[in-house]
């Protein structure tokens, strides 16, 4: 029997209740969550094969565009690795992403922002990590957008990420921000994370070495999923 997954550090994650993010007030459990070590049901999870992906699934610039058309906006590549807490790449991890268009508008029936839709931009994509845990997708840089929370709250430019590792215990949804954006530090959703060091791990870094000249700039963003305690133990043994 494995030692199970490393417990989540709940001071590193945002707490359920963060009053500055108003929707969390009525959607946050009051009782403390019940702690149990992971067992087989949490240490297994669905498997997604590379064969399920379409050729354009990781290209948000064209995956919704009319033939010969492309989405509008600053062209970027987002690349990085999905790792576990032990620093090992997670192969076969499904990464699903969604985002607003370059004007900050989502393609969604509940969206009310006056910025226009881009007819050639759907706003979603997906990719599965390779043997070393690497992933990459191409998109346009999303715009910031206002949202109904405080009287004048704006989301910094961001891309939403949903990630499956190899175990359901690793299931994670988070958001990626862009280096140098001053809006990051004004956002009540970002501010639900109390530690600056934790927030910084969600900020993608511009990587000019990976840009495609005259085409797209590159941002680097690594995602860390929970690690297995047994791996931790094995590593200690190896290292001694």
């Amino acid at each position: 029997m494995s030692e199970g997954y490393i417990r989540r550090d709940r001071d590193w994650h945002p707490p359920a209740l963060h009053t500055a993010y108003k929707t969390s007030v009525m959607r946050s459990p009051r009782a403390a969550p019940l702690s149990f070590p992971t067992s087989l049901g949490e240490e297994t999870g669905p498997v997604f094969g590379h064969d399920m992906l379409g050729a354009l699934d990781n290209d948000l610039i064209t995956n919704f565009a009319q033939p010969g058309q492309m989405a509008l906006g600053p062209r970027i590549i987002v690349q990085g690795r999905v790792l576990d807490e032990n620093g090992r790449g997670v192969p076969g991890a499904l990464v699903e992403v969604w985002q607003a268009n370059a004007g900050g508008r989502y393609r969604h029936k509940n969206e009310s922002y006056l910025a226009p839709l881009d007819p050639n931009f759907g706003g979603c994509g997906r990719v599965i990590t390779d043997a070393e845990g690497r992933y990459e997708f191409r998109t346009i840089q999303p715009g910031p957008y206002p949202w109904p929370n405080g009287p004048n709250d704006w989301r910094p430019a961001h891309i939403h990420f949903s990630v499956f590792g190899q175990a359901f215990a690793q299931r994670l949804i988070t958001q990626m921000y862009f280096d140098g954006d001053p809006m990051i530090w004004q956002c009540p959703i970002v501010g639900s994370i109390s530690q600056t060091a934790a927030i910084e791990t969600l900020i993608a870094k511009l990587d000019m070495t990976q840009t495609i000249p005259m085409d797209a700039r590159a941002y680097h963003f690594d995602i860390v999923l929970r690690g297995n305690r047994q791996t931790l133990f094995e590593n200690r043994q190896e290292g001694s």
Partner: protein
Amino acid sequence: MKYLKESPSQTAGPYVHIGCTPNFAGIRMYDGDLGATMKRGPVQGEEIVVTGAVHDGMGAVLMDAMIEIWQADAAGLYPSPREVRGRADPNFTGWGRSAGNPETGLFTFDTVKPGQVPWRDGTLQAPHVTVWIVARGINLGLHTRMYFEDETEANATDPILKRIEHRNRIPTLMARKTANGVYRFDIVLQGVGETIFFDI
């Protein structure tokens, strides 16, 4: 050795369906939405339908949640490469994802009643389904478990249920049988009848 911190969670936000169930959101992408069906063909065991809703602290039903479930097959085997006790039903995926009905918020899973799976010490757990809930206003995805009210005997010896101090909260983990093969499971995020969530 290089030890890393887990990436901190951020809310799935109001538009999680664009990314995870785009066809449901009206964006025709991929070959349909992942997790919309849990069966690839005829499955073994008792086929059941689980339906329910997610309620906020005011009793309102969430219309923008996404629910995922993960479970063993009818024989208690997980369809996972990490399952070493045997080969799970090849026609059963074990994983489902539901955005809920756009008018009612009701989520529905066409699945099978899971078999019993051993706990860490080898004792058998009662049949159960792992449930994960995300939505706008939920800062970290919520894990819980769904058990079956009609599995009285197995529930009585389940290692997790046995250790729950507030016995009056156990019904929050129980799916109620409402018809043959049909179960109802409601999730209450906050307040009276608040579902037990797990730090697991």
